[in-house]
């Protein structure tokens, strides 16, 4: 019995400089739990955003119950019963559970809010979900799992027929995950269609009926989960021609004798544990993992942006105490953060001031800053990295993504940084700029610097790295040498699987 609830027909979505979805067509059956799978950037969230009216497709259409459904905005979608349980919880933290559930649709009697009626209804919803908190509890007193329950209660209250979850287990404990799965299956039993995005394959196998795989914005296939081996699923997610442009052009230059950074059992309460690895002069060390694996947090911990709760960091053979980014900078460590726009550079400053921000001491004479010297230096480093336009007076925020990233890197090149941690250095930038960043990285390691490159893109990590650290769930699951680079294998470690050939793992102590 085939009952099409949602149909995506030839969906294309073009963003400036990038095609996020390419002619995607698929059908979701009524009352199934349907997984959307793919690597970071495969187009899963874009597809959901189109369904929920966040933005429209460039071409193609979405049909619900056979009717074209082009929601003008999110509220339209919600009114029609198409509801998303958010990755970042979108509730008003200062308001109560009841107020949140009825936000925008309060029950009123002659203009006065009918608290009693709303309370009764909220209580009914909460008991239906087996929740033990009160309707009058303020949302900021709830934990993440409970907040999710409030969102689900709200979805039921709004008579949702389609509910989608985007990485719902992202910050849940194991017990909360169980509760969530139980409720999702209850929603399913009530005939609600569920879309489910997750990077954790175990979850897919536990609760999903079918799975659709997307890759680079293209539809790869839809499979019944029960009859699909995990290995084939992984392969269909990756399976692409590696290293079209992410590759090294010059001979490798790692000095294996010279350890510039050694991290021993570093842990932090931002979500990483027992991290041990070493970095050598002239090495590009890739850090791979899926969203939420703790890579960014690890980098921030080492850099002193968040506190390490355990472990030691040695630089150039000496143990160092890094308690703040200022300490890290003094130790010749630099970080290009994942979120360039909000953490990498200052919007109101021009290239000159952004490039020199970390190295003003160099331009200090007496109490004054030498503007001339600063400008000369900015122009020189700008030329070296091919900054376009190489104009110190130009505002960084008006540059393209690739050039913004170059400014962030230029900032660290202006310091005496010997070790650069580049967190997703090519995220959201076009292919040409990517190639330039890769060439720049190669140039830097040839000058004797060492680079840690955090990336969620397999071709990039395989093409550029000398070794790869794979993280899963806040821990290192493998450290691979070049002869062990293999997409399926890396991804298997990244999703928490044990390697097919465990003896080959060269995990450092």
């Amino acid at each position, binding site marked *: 019995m085939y009952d099409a609830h949602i149909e995506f027909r030839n969906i294309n979505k073009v*963003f*400036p*400089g*990038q095609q*996020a979805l390419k002619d995607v067509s698929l059908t979701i059956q009524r009352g199934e739990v349907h997984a959307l799978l793919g690597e*970071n*950037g*495969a*187009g*899963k*969230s*874009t597809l959901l*955003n189109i369904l929920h009216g*966040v*933005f429209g497709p460039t071409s193609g259409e979405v049909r619900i119950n056979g009717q074209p459904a082009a929601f003008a905005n999110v509220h339209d979608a919600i009114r029609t019963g198409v509801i998303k349980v958010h990755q970042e919880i979108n509730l008003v933290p200062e308001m109560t559970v009841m107020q949140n559930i009825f936000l925008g649709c309060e029950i009123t009697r002659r203009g006065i809010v009918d608290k009693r009626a709303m309370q009764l209804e909220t209580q009914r919803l909460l008991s239906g979900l087996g929740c033990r908190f009160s309707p009058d509890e303020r949302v900021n007193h709830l934990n993440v799992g409970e907040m999710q329950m409030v969102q689900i209660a709200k979805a039921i209250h709004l008579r949702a027929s389609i509910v989608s979850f985007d990485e719902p287990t992202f910050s849940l404990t194991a017990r909360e995950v169980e509760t969530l799965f139980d409720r999702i299956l209850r929603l399913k039993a009530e005939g609600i269609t569920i879309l489910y995005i997750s990077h954790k394959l175990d979850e897919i196998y536990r609760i999903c009926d079918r799975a659709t795989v997307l890759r680079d914005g293209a539809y790869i296939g839809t499979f019944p989960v029960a009859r699909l081996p995990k290995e084939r699923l992984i392969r269909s997610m990756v399976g692409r021609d590696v290293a079209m442009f992410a590759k090294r052009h010059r001979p490798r230059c790692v000095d294996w004798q010279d350890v510039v950074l050694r991290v021993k059992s570093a842990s932090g309460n931002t979500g990483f544990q027992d991290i041990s690895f070493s970095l050598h002069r002239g090495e590009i060390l890739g850090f791979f993992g899926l969203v939420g694996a703790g890579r960014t947090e690890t980098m921030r911990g080492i*850099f002193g*942006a968040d506190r390490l709760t355990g472990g030691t960091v040695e630089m150039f053979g000496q143990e160092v105490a890094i308690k*703040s*980014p*200022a300490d*890290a*900078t*003094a130790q010749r460590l630099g*970080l290009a*953060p994942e979120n360039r*726009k*909000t*953490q*990498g*550079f*200052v*919007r*109101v*400053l021009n290239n000159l*001031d952004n490039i*020199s*921000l*970390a190295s*003003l*001491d160099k331009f*200090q004479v007496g*109490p*004054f*800053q030498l*503007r001339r010297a600063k400008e000369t230096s900015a122009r020189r480093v700008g030329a070296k990295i091919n900054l*376009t*336009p190489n104009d110190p007076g130009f505002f960084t*925020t*008006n*540059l*393209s*993504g690739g*050039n*913004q990233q170059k400014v962030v890197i230029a*900032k660290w090149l202006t*310091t005496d940084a010997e070790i650069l941690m580049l967190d997703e250095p090519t*995220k*959201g930038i*076009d292919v040409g700029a990517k190639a330039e960043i890769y060439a720049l990285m190669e140039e830097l390691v040839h000058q004797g610097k060492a680079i840690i490159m955090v990336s969620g893109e397999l071709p990039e990590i395989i093409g550029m790295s000398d070794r790869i650290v794979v993280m899963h769930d806040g821990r290192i699951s493998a450290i691979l040498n070049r002869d062990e680079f293999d997409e399926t294998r890396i991804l298997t470690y990244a999703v928490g699987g044990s390697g097919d050939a465990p003896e080959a793992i060269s995990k450092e102590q």
Partner: protein
Amino acid sequence: MRSGGAAMRLKQFLKNNSREVGLVVALVVMTALFGAINPLYVSPANITDIINQATIYGLMALGMTFIVISGGIDLSIGSVLALIGVIVANMAVAGVHPLLCVAVGIAIGFGVGAMNGFMVAKMNLQPFVATLGAMSFIRGFAYVISGGYPIIGIPPGYRVLVDGLLVSGIRTSVLIFLTVAVICHILLKHTKFGNYTYAIGGNEEATRLSGVKVDRYKILVYAVGVSCTAVAALVQLGKLGTGEASAGQGYELNAIAAVAIGGASMAGGRGGIVGTVLGALLFAGLKVGLIVVGVDTFWQYVATGLVIVVAAYSEKIQAKLSETPGRVRAWGAQPSGARRAADD
């Protein structure tokens, strides 16, 4: 060719300093307008009066400029003016050397500012709330110290130092204002401290991740900022000849108004000393002008308020014009919505 280059440079200058140029134009237009209605307005005596009036607000506004650019605000400076006034008045009356009085006054300002900065940077309080508290307890201390009585009998030696007549019509206080303004401008534009003040106001997290000791500099920003109010207090004491615990009430708002008119963004990261000085002159000129042309006292408040709102709105429009989509697209930057979605 040469003149073409000069024209280009002039155009660039006007573009980079559009706010300041706009303020000068507004100042000229306003002066001409008031002068046309009542020629007395442009008499030398009246002009010096305006400048004298601008001195106190102006000094306070200079300090507030740093704080506002760093993304903060300080509501306590009106109270600080009173506190330093009564302490230094007591010292001066007791016969302490005027220069020592000045040094102590500035030290108190620096200390109070550092305390405000500590509350903001280390205790993580919102600047508005922290300095609202400070505003009240500093005023309280001023009353406690003075017992509520005005302190009179400031020796002439002190008064001449801070507000003596230099040449006809020009007082030392004006010279002090200009000197402090120049120092502030250099601090803001040509030192590390100034660079960090803009960077912190623009994006504190990015600045911290660049290895800047953000907390330390935020404390310093408030310390320097309130030190300017200390100078204002010292000058005010010389002008009035009495120290009073009730002095300076509401002055913080005038200082903020001057800074806002001068083009600083309350969100931080934008602003300058030249703008603030012009803002203070415009503000004082407006107040005097409304009196000179005979506008009813009550309407003066209305007019002043409107000017602040209009000035703030013109800043918004300017900000919008300097970030036209055309210019952004020229270098291929993506709109933020697209980037968010592309991050998937």
